[in-house]
């Protein structure tokens, strides 16, 4: 590798590495796969190469510039995935993938668990609109403070809507005969 190119590469890696580390740390918390993070950061590298002509310019790229590049790259990756998905669904109508958490136990237990899971998903659909997204986010594993931050709500408002939403969900499940027991 020529010296100038090597310097350019080193500067680029140094600039991107810090941001990539941050995205990876945050990404793990958001259950993001390493492959997704790698895809974004590779796209960021390519864009910085193209946009910044010299190693000096690359090494002086501000964090906010790298951030804006990463947002734009992630958005483009999402768009490309949509386009690929649309092509696939056009050509293969019945090839939809299904992600299922395996149920422990035999086929009977698995069937029963699948039915209960279906009832839970259906009961969530019926929750009052103002509470439903909070409940969905909570059940998907996001902590309450992140829900509050995303929605721009106070901790108290988020907690209140979540508790009401979960109570409503449990009541609807009870109506469906799911997950209840008689108190002594």
């Amino acid at each position, binding site marked *: 590798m020529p010296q100038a190119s090597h310097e350019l590469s080193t500067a680029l890696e140094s600039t991107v590495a810090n941001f990539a580390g941050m995205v990876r740390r*945050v990404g793990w918390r958001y259950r993001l796969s390493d492959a*997704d993070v790698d895809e974004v950061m590779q796209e960021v590298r390519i864009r910085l190469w193209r946009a910044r002509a010299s190693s000096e310019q690359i090494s002086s790229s501000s964090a906010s510039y790298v951030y804006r590049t990463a947002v734009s790259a992630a958005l483009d990756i999402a768009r490309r995935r949509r386009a690929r998905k649309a092509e696939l669904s056009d050509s293969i109508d019945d090839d939809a993938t299904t992600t299922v*958490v*395996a149920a422990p136990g035999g086929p009977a237990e698995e069937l029963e668990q699948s039915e209960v899971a279906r009832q839970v998903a259906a009961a969530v659909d019926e929750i009052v609109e103002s509470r439903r997204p909070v409940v*969905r986010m909570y059940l998907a594993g996001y902590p309450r403070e992140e829900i509050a931050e*995303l929605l721009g709500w106070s901790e108290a408002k988020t907690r209140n809507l979540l508790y009401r939403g979960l109570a409503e969900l449990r009541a609807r499940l009870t109506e469906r005969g799911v997950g209840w027991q008689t108190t002594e």
Partner: protein
Amino acid sequence: MTNNMSDARLRQLYALGTGARAGAAATATHVSPEDILALVQRSLPEAQRLATLDHVMACAECRREFDLLRAVEAAGGERTPQVRQLPSAWRRLAPLAIAASLALVVGTEAWRRSTADQAPVMRGESAGVTVTSPAGEVAAGAPLTFAWHPVPGARRYDLEVLNADGNLVFSAETRDTVVTGARPETIVPGAEYRWWVRAVLEDGAQPRSEPRSFRVLAQ
């Protein structure tokens, strides 16, 4: 009559229920990537924000893009709350946690159920959660023990184990700092997993640990 299905159990079933819908959702109308970005950047009006979030959280495909954009956004804005760690507190309480790990041996079924019993909550002196084991490689036939450091003010702990795709494969609620027993059937040999612990504190705060990965060796 009261419905006492635990939050952890609801989460497990919800993941299963929404996963089973993934096929149907593949043909449904999705939220545009631009709207998902607007959601994570909090630039949508509240009504639209709620409607967008409602779809995204029910749709595996949109959620993957939401997580990607949110990670980039949070990394750029440095808005992610950092979990504080205080190793010295753990050193003082290590004998207590080790004693607990030796005393508690429960099966897979006991893991799955909520352990909201009358046992005292294991509490430390820091506000963060630091997980200790498992990490690295785990023998296929060996019992699996999840352990972490106690957190002050903890009402309970939620443990989550995710597969390489980020799907929830196991969760548990406990008042202890150790969950151990036979390996759940959803955690299979030859695969890599990440796990973390969220402490639910008396004041409502829910600090989380950094994720820790482990691989179950092939048999």
